[in-house]
């Protein structure tokens, strides 16, 4: 609890560091904030071409929204995924790249990874806002669901922040962690229903039967991945415009809280040694 107070006391610093990231990022570019859309759009184009046009992935139309556009369905999951990956990628180096600051000034160190989460969230908010406008133009009735979208975003941000806290510490002691992470994130993306629907996994799992003769199916194992639930919630809200399964909400909440608790605990234990370990 005391620790939370300390973090709250440094919120101005957190805001200023976040603004440093946000303002510094697209400084001296002609397109500025629009660059934040470039990466998701490029991925959307290439994935749509490969998976919808060449591999012909078939989607159920959004229920009840009636939407049936692969590119839009893709973005509803791709934007949360890109945010998640950005938080981990920038959070993991947040301590190492600020070594000079840590060794010269005493301040609440936890604001370094958290400011990375906040600045990624700022870009994400902008991307989702654009997506919502596009969804509305296409006729999806998404506006009433926006408060819940924000709740889901907070949960995913919490989950990502917890992991980023742990990773940032691990990277101080083992610099391999950041190279390891880029591989993990690639595998993780393909193991999550970002560019294909879970229904395809269910079909394949049914054909394959239990794993090694046990009643455990591939689908069960697949659901160990928390991103399955997060992406389901986002697509239900944004693309289908319906209530996600309450169980999915609960699982997302549990992962977010769990990651945050462990993340803060790990960070707190190591915080005092950072100036020496770096």
């Amino acid at each position: 609890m005391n620790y939370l107070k300390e973090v709250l006391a440094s919120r101005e610093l957190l805001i200023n560091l976040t603004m440093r990231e946000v303002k510094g990022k697209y400084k001296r570019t002609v397109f500025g904030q629009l660059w934040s859309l470039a990466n998701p759009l490029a991925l959307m184009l290439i994935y749509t071409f490969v998976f919808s046009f060449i591999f012909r992935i078939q989607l159920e139309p959004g229920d009840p929204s009636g939407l049936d556009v692969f590119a839009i369905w893709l973005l509803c999951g791709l934007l949360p995924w890109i945010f998640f990956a950005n938080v981990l990628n920038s959070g993991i180096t947040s301590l190492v790249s600020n070594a000079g600051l840590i060794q010269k000034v005493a301040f609440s160190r936890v604001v370094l990874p958290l400011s990375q989460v906040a600045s990624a969230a700022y870009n994400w908010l902008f991307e989702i806002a654009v997506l919502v406008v596009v969804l509305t133009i296409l006729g999806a009735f998404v506006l009433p669901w926006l408060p819940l979208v924000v709740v889901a975003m907070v949960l995913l941000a919490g989950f990502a922040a917890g992991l980023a806290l742990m990773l940032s510490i691990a990277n101080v002691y083992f610099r391999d962690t950041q190279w390891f992470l880029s591989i993990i994130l690639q595998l993780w993306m393909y193991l999550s229903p970002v560019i294909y629907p879970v229904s395809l996994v269910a079909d394949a799992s049914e054909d394959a039967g239990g794993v090694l003769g046990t009643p455990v199916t591939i689908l069960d194992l697949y659901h160990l991945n928390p991103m399955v639930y997060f992406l389901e919630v986002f697509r239900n809200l944004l693309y289908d415009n319906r209530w996600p399964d309450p169980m999915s909400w609960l699982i997302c909440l549990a992962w977010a809280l769990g990651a945050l608790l462990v993340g803060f605990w790990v960070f707190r234990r190591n915080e005092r040694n950072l100036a020496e370990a770096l």
Partner: protein
Amino acid sequence: MSDVAVRVDHVSKSFRMYHERNQTLKSAIMRGRTSVHEDFWALQDVSFDVPEGSTFGLIGSNGSGKSTLLKCLAKIYYPNKGTITHFGKLAAMLEVGSGFHHELSGRENIYLNGSILGMSRKEIDRKFDDIVGFSGVEQFIDQPVKNYSSGMYVRLGFSVAINVDPDILVVDEVLAVGDAEFQKKCFDKFAEFKRVGKTVILVSHSMESVRSMCDHAAWLNKGTLKAVGEAAPTIAAYEASLNNG
């Protein structure tokens, strides 16, 4: 004058000296261990009081533990044994311009750096003109700091730090910033600190500046405290040891 501003109580600090350090996973696994080290005691059982309102100098040769002690005072390192208690708001100036972002303007960097040093937005708003005035970079305050000369850069950093306005200020050898005119400004600022009864703890290799500014001093040698007290006899003892050594 009898009140204590900072009490350093039996402080010891060790560092690990690594003979072998495996910071990659491969080497940690291959060698079956992350490191082989022995402890090096940078500070051993150091105790002294810094009187309130004094200007306190830490002197000693290279490697005597002055900077380690300073970092312990600044709460960047934590001592293994002993405690450091301070009475009043403490601020440390170990480096100027920490955390400046090169693409941001001087104005934005004042706010950023100020909040890193623990000032609130309101406080910075209030002191903004003083900070800019003291640094003497008014004309360029809305330019990105990467276009600043190195002198302007440290002057701005120093101005932010000096305006934190603590009761106790801990300073590493940052007095050597800027031109002669700015140095004079800094000395005047320290003198003003002293006049209003604030405590300054500084590390310096220049015996001249210690002699002229400090009224108390502590002499450290290889991590142990050799002498502490009034500045003149402490400095004399230190210089005598240099001449004999």
